[in-house]
Structure formats: structure tokens, C-alpha cells
């Protein structure tokens, strides 16, 4: 067995040993299915830049530990971590710790929140290997349902804290947005301590007619963390999905964002910012399917890369036959602060309808020397000038922030992260 593969026998043994809760049956089916799939490899087109061998290694470590200790997870020390976020972002907070729900569930008018291992769940979706793997080892997860017309006064906050002492965790959040509801969700993904760990997360949302879902994910994990994150949203008639992602931490981060428009008048907004330093690797694969028209999608990802970091942007837009009136715009802009950083950016448009507007563009560049000189002639030092131009580039993504409550917190963590990036730009 190669080092890049999950030990299948061990996986089946662990799944058999897991509790007989409402997820048991789905886990068992998924474990057998995963045996046929295995982790994606760089031989697959969608994974050619991202190697999951570290994730597999950590997965096997976790399976070994489960057999040894019966699935006892180490407690994480997170007191200050939690307060630092909750004091800054006004939201109804829920804590997910290493894949377990570890807080009381909020009581919000028109919103039902439950634990899927306890209360049951709708079918767990996703036929791809990482989703199947997630299902096979899922210990618990969150189900959030917004009743028709519900418009909570504050966002739901999900604080996802993983502890490197536990080598791996599976996280799953399922959202049902009822007709004409307007749900706002902030996810903060943090590590409780420094160290290697692999998180495999799934966020899946179903938006009924006229529903709006605003979703912001702030990923600021430890620099050794590895994560594979799948986000999928299904949009019915006149629904709106607005998503911002901020990837600041992690050694290796892979995001798959899939939005599927199945109803007329729906709109998708995807906005991403990735800041990579050192040897960080951040891979964003997005896919927007315009199944019907008229419908709109707007997508803008920005990246700032320093050190020997490597980032990937792959933006797929599919306009299905008959989806006339589709209006789609996509852009990816990158700022390289170092000669050794690398970005691979690729738009992929597949258009099978006639009456559509699709625009896309990508740029890769360095800091503008003319602008730097201009600022210096105003008395600003070179580092200061670099910092504010870089910050301005990043801050462009805050102007489309879907959940205003996290603006100030984000602006602060962005500033800290950018200062590191600029100081260590080589």
C-alpha cells in the first residue's frame, strides 16, 4: 500500500466500531463505497496541482489512534480563541470541535438547529471521494433549517475549532433555506494549537424559492493544517447565494465550491481572497452551473502570494442547453510579492445556450512601481507604501462582504496577516 492511500481495512474496522447512532448506516455504506474510490490523486485533472498524500498520512494516523483509544479525542484548550472571535462578531454562535457539536444550540425565531447524529438528517449528498470519505467517518454535524420567511436578526456563527492532537476531523454543515427566508452564516475555522492536522469539511445548502443565503468563511488555521473543503449550494427560483471566502492560514487548503442554479431568476455571488506565504498551498476550484435562465452569477477571486507559495484558481461556468438569459461574470486577480511564488489560474467556460453573456478575465502582477514612488514622494516609507497598496488590493474583497457583522474582525485579521506577508515576502 502506498503512503498516499488510506488503509481500507483499518477504515472498515473503525466504521464498524463507531457508535450505533443515526449516522451508522450511512457510514457503513460510504465506507464500502470509498474502498472503490480512494483519495483523488494528481493524475486526475481536477487535482493535478494538489497532492493529498499528507492528508492520507494524517488519516491513517487517526484511524490507528481510533483503534487504540476507542475514538477518544483530546480536549482542546480554546478559551481565549473562542472569546477572541465571539466578542468581535455579533452572532448566534455554535461550536464545532473536531467534528463534534460542542455547545448549546441557539434558540432563534424561525430557525431550527439540530445535531445530525442525534436527530437524523436528510440524505448525505456527494458522490465524490472526499464527500464519501466524510460520510464514512462522520461523527456528528449540524443541520440548520430556516422556516419560510424567517429573517433572523443576527447571523448564525459556526466556530470550527480543530485540535492537531487529533490527526483528522470530518465536519459537516447542512442548510435548508425555506421559501423567502434570509439566513446569514459566518464560519470561522481555527486551530486550537500549532501542529499538523487534516480537516475534511462539507457545507451543503439547499435554497428554496426566493430564499437568500449569505455565507462568509474565514479560514485562519495553523500553518501546518491541511484541509479539503467542499461547499455546494442548490438554488431554486429567485434565490440568491452570496459567498465570501477568506483563506489566510493552513499549509494546504483545497476548496471546491459548486453552485447549481435550477430555477429562473436565481443569482450566485462568489468572492474569494487568498493570502499565501512561505510554502502555503491554496487551491480554489469553483463551478457554477446555470441550469436555467435568466439567471446571473458573479465571481471574483483575489490572491496575494509571497514566499514560495503556490495557489490555484480554476473557475468553471457551465451554461446548460436552453439556459437563455444567463449573465455570468468571473475574474481572478493576483498580486505576486515574490519571484518564487506561483499561481495557476484557469477559467473554464462551457456554453450550450445561445442568448448568454459570459465574461471572464485573469490578471497576475507585481506591486505598481509608479504608485510606490508616488506614495514615497508624499513621505511614506517604502514598507508603508507597499503595505497600503497591498492592503487596498485585498480590501477590495471586503466591499462585497455578505455578512457585515464580521467586517471589523476581518479587517483586523487581514491586516495582521498582510503585515506578515510583506515582512516575509521572499
Amino acid at each position: 500500500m502506498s503512503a498516499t492511500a488510506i488503509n481500507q481495512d483499518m477504515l472498515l474496522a473503525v466504521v464498524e466500531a463507531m457508535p450505533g447512532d443515526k449516522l451508522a448506516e450511512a457510514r457503513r455504506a460510504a465506507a464500502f463505497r470509498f474502498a472503490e474510490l480512494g483519495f483523488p490523486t494528481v493524475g486526475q485533472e481536477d487535482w493535478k496541482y494538489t497532492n493529498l498524500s499528507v492528508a492520507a498520512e494524517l488519516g491513517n494516523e487517526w484511524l490507528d489512534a481510533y483503534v487504540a483509544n476507542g475514538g477518544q479525542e483530546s480536549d482542546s484548550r480554546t478559551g481565549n480563541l473562542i472569546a477572541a472571535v465571539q466578542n468581535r462578531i455579533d452572532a448566534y454562535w455554535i461550536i464545532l470541535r473536531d467534528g463534534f457539536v460542542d455547545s448549546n444550540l441557539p434558540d432563534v425565531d424561525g430557525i431550527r438547529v439540530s445535531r445530525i447524529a442525534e436527530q437524523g438528517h436528510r440524505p448525505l449528498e456527494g458522490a465524490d471521494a472526499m464527500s464519501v470519505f466524510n460520510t464514512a467517518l462522520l461523527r456528528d454535524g449540524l443541520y440548520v433549517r430556516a422556516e419560510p420567511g424567517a429573517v433572523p436578526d443576527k447571523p448564525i456563527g459556526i466556530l470550527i475549532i480543530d485540535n492537531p492532537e487529533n490527526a483528522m476531523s470530518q465536519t459537516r454543515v447542512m442548510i435548508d433555506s425555506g421559501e423567502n427566508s434570509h439566513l446569514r452564516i459566518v464560519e470561522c475555522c481555527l486551530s486550537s494549537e500549532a501542529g499538523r492536522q487534516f480537516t475534511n469539511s462539507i457545507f451543503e445548502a439547499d435554497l428554496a424559492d426566493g430564499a437568500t443565503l449569505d455565507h462568509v468563511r474565514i479560514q485562519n488555521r495553523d500553518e501546518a493544517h491541511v484541509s479539503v473543503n467542499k461547499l455546494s449550494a442548490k438554488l431554486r427560483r429567485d434565490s440568491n447565494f452570496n459567498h465570501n471566502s477568506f483563506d489566510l492560514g493552513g499549509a494546504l487548503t483545497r476548496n471546491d465550491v459548486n453552485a447549481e442554479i435550477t430555477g429562473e431568476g436565481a443569482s450566485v455571488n462568489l468572492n474569494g481572497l487568498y493570502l499565501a506565504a512561505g510554502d502555503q498551498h491554496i487551491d480554489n476550484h469553483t463551478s457554477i452551473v446555470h441550469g436555467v435562465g435568466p439567471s446571473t452569477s458573479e465571481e471574483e477571486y483575489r490572491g496575494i502570494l509571497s514566499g514560495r507559495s503556490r495557489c490555484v484558481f480554476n473557475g468553471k461556468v457551465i451554461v446548460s442547453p436552453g439556459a437563455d438569459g444567463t449573465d455570468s461574470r468571473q475574474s481572478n486577480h493576483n498580486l505576486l510579492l515574490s519571484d518564487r511564488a506561483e499561481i495557476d489560474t484557469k477559467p473554464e467556460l462551457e456554453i450550450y445556450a445561445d442568448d448568454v453573456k459570459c465574461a471572464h478575465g485573469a490578471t497576475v502582477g507585481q506591486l505598481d512601481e509608479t504608485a510606490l514612488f508616488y506614495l514615497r514622494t508624499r513621505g511614506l516609507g517604502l514598507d508603508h507604501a507597499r503595505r497600503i497598496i497591498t492592503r487596498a488590493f485585498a480590501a477590495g474583497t471586503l466591499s462585497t462582504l455578505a455578512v457585515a457583522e464580521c467586517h471589523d474582525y476581518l479587517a483586523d485579521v487581514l491586516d495582521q496577516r498582510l503585515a506578515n506577508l510583506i515582512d516575509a515576502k521572499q
Partner: protein
Amino acid sequence: MLEVKNLKASIGGKEILTGLNLSVKAGEVHAIMGPNGSGKSTLAQVIAGHADYEVTSGAVEFLGKDLLDLDPEERAREGIFLGFQYPVEIPGVNNAYLLKAAVNAKRKHHGMDEIDAFEFLKLAREKMTMLGMDPVFLNRGVNEGFSGGEKKRNEILQMAMLEPSLAILDETDSGLDIDALKAVANGVNSLRDPERAIVLVTHYQRLLDYIEPDYVHVLSGGQIIRSGDKSLALELEDRGYEWVVEAASA
């Protein structure tokens, strides 16, 4: 205040300034005129410290200091201001932020406390009124989406806030309609002071109708080939540059 001696400077191996001499004293207004490609903008950029220009010989002294030893930001903090011919758009960097950072960089350099936020706003609003600028420009990105005239007014606003000892204004009059020209000239004139020197780099006599210079210089082939008082500018307007160039090479 400013002593330029036998200055030679080149860009990409091409010599643009070929031995330029210029002496500017406090309280004076100098106009530097000359045909296209004569080196006017190069002189402005070299004094401000643009790294693309290589000074191959000569000296530039500012208030007794060797200017060529200083980084652009140090020159600015010492009191040099360059008004750009093409002010740079910096999307996302707030105009008020830049103004305040610039003022504070200079204050810090001179051992002063940072400017009080209220004081800063009051001062900025005053200067903007004088320049006919809407205060909303404070909250826009630096020159982002500004018209040509707005950009030039914004340069003068920065100058007015920074109160430099030496202001070099590179083609500040280009692209301005008559109202904007008057507003800009008004701003420059309000800064005339016995302690301050102003160097206007310009193609046309028109600006000098509004800002009256003490000295007019003709720059050609990278050197100052003739100097005079404001009547020289009028003569240039009448007769062009050719006769000066011919007289100099005779």
C-alpha cells in the same frame, strides 16, 4: 535653498540632463520652460528621487544637505514636494488616509506629535474650499476615477497640507480648463511665502499669467540655456523656442 550643480542624469543609458545648473532661493518662484523632450520632467523626477534615473555626475543640495543621498520619502519629509504631471490612481487607498499619513510622516520626522484628527479634517476642508473641491473627495480612493482637473487640484491639496519648503510642480497646468487653472493658481499663490520656493515646470506662458514668476529659465538639450525675468516667458510665447536654442549654440 536648492543648488543644482552641473547635474548629469540618464535613463536606460540615455543621457537626458547634460550638465544642468540651477539656484533657487527661499521666497522665489521659478518657471522652467522648454520644448518637448528637453529634460524638464526628468529634472523634476531626479530632484524627487525617482530610482529609474541615474545621476552620473554633479550635485544637488537642498537646505545644505546632499539630496542625492536621500530616499524619496526622506526628501519629502525634509520639505520637497513634487506635483506630478500624471498623478497616480491608487484604487482602494483612501485620499484622507494618504493625506494624513503624509502629514504625520513629515511631523514625525521633525519630532512633532501626530496631527489631531479634528484639526486634520478642519484643515483639509479649508484647503478644499479654497481649491473648489467637494469634501467627498476625501473619502474617495487616491485619484481613483478623478477627472484631469480633479487630479491636479488633488495634487495642490496635498501640497497645501504638507506645506513644503520647495514645491516642484510638473506641468500642473496641462489638461486644465480655465476655471480649474484659476483654482490651482489660487492654491499655489496662497502658498507663496518668504520661507518657501516654488518651481513651475510648464510648456505654456498661460499659467504664468496667474502665478507670476521671479525667474524664467529655458531648458534645452538637458541644460538651462537662458534665464531671465517674466518678460522672457512672454517673448517665448511670441517667438517660440528656436531663437533661444540658436542663440545658445551660436
